[in-house]
């Protein structure tokens, strides 16, 4: 089982270990969505709505620029910004992953 896991780990494209800043073409500059950025960003939709378009009391994140999402996530991660739950989530991502997430949502925004 463990051997299989190691193989699977090695097999996935854009694995977390291989992910260094700049090592993958950033989604903001290409029309193709970064597959790892996509998978990371799908984690937000249960709370923030499909594509970040909230229909409820949690703030929407669609239409926000890459830099807005990135700096908000980093502030939640460091604890500089108060939150009920976001800091517990933001701490689960590396700064490089936060960048990918911010670029994913930034694609929908008019201000990059």
């Amino acid at each position, binding site marked *: 089982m463990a051997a299989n896991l190691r*193989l699977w780990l090695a097999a*996935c494209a854009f694995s977390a270990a291989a992910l260094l800043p700049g090592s993958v073409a950033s989604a903001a500059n290409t029309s193709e969505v970064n597959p790892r950025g996509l*998978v990371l960003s799908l*984690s937000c939709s*249960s*709370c*923030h709505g499909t594509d970040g378009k909230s229909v409820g*009391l949690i703030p929407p994140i669609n239409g926000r620029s890459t830099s807005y999402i990135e700096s908000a996530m980093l502030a939640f991660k460091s604890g500089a910004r108060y939150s009920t739950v976001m800091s517990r989530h933001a701490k689960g991502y590396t700064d490089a992953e936060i960048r990918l997430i911010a670029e994913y949502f930034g694609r929908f925004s008019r201000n990059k």
Partner: protein
Amino acid sequence: MKMSHKISRRDFSKLLLTGAAGASLGLFGTPSKAFGASKRVVVIGGGFGGAAAAKYLRKLDPSISVTLVEPKAVFHTCPFSNWVLAGLRTMGDISQTYAVLRNKYQINVIADSAVAVDAARGTVKLKSGMVLNYDRLIVSPGIDFKWDAIPGHSEALANTKIPHAYQAGAQTVLLQNQLHAMRNGGKVIICPPSNPFRCPPGPYERASLIAHYLKAKKPLSKILILDPKDKFSKQGLFKQGWEKLYPGMIEWRSGVTGGKIVKLDGTTMTVTTEFGEEKGDVINLIPPQKAGKIAFDAGLTDASGWCPINPVSFESTIHPGIHVIGDASVAGAMPKSGFAASSQGKVAAAAIVRLLQGKVPASPSLVNTCYSLIGTDYAISVAGVYKLTADGIVEIQGAGGLTPMNADADQLKEEASFAVGWYNNIIHDTWG
């Protein structure tokens, strides 16, 4: 791997072109048909995992045709069903239908049950006799109960007198009617199951919200939780909330202090524990659980009674080409929750899109949060972010965790409003 790996010559050269990534594709089950020829995905179960996977498949790659098999025309969500018991929501409020998935996302929703899966041929047989062909299959059937685990209990008794209310719908209504009919001063006994089970905080949120109802309508009543376990999810936070909002009303008895039940007598409404007998006016016995029946019939379960999977794509380690998500799967450190099922559904959908294009899936990232309402304006939460390591799906250290103990009233109130925000968004994200 018993499956034949038939890949056309053209597809094979495409595979070679993708180099190392193509080579590692062999680690993922190859569908029985050459990929590229067709992209048909069948999804069994239109709950939190299955409906989300079906919708995201269509959203991520509209060239995939998706068929969703679900017997219920109306799906009642377990999340917020405890709010119904409290009188804070109606059954109508927790009802979902498949109209948007059918009309907007062009998913072929078939109101039927899957009765057999032929993994070698890539077919699913439905109760009506219809046979569906798939290139990839997603199975998200939720849970089934181990009826023989508690002597004296049976499915028939659960349907008439001793509800579990752990699959929402008629069961929720039965429990609610019993609470309404109960005298002031009556005793409600809740018997949570042993691990692992769906929604670890569920029985304790239920105790809180039944207490909310009883405090207002039948304040002399008591709730006794007879638990086979010695600790439970968000225990400190729940106990703090119970003391604040319902002092003296809820008693929790752990396994070592006589909480484990060994027998049920539905006629006299008595449960027997290792320490003695307890009579209840209402008994909410939640039996121990296993993967939904079709997972067994399709040969997807192991000795644990749940389905082992490859955590990159949630593909079965027993039958390639079949992905198991949600409560039925063994997903490492993730709890069995609607949130987790949805996260797994999206990861599986994204992986299947790549696999059907002959590409390797991205490394998964998974997430969970369970909100529990203890009283009006008083909610707590537990969160987790998960990644894949050589030890499987693990929780990322330093992230996630609980609402702090002794949080001020404002924060608990904010969490209660975000619980509603979460519910509305996940419902819309899944069925809307």
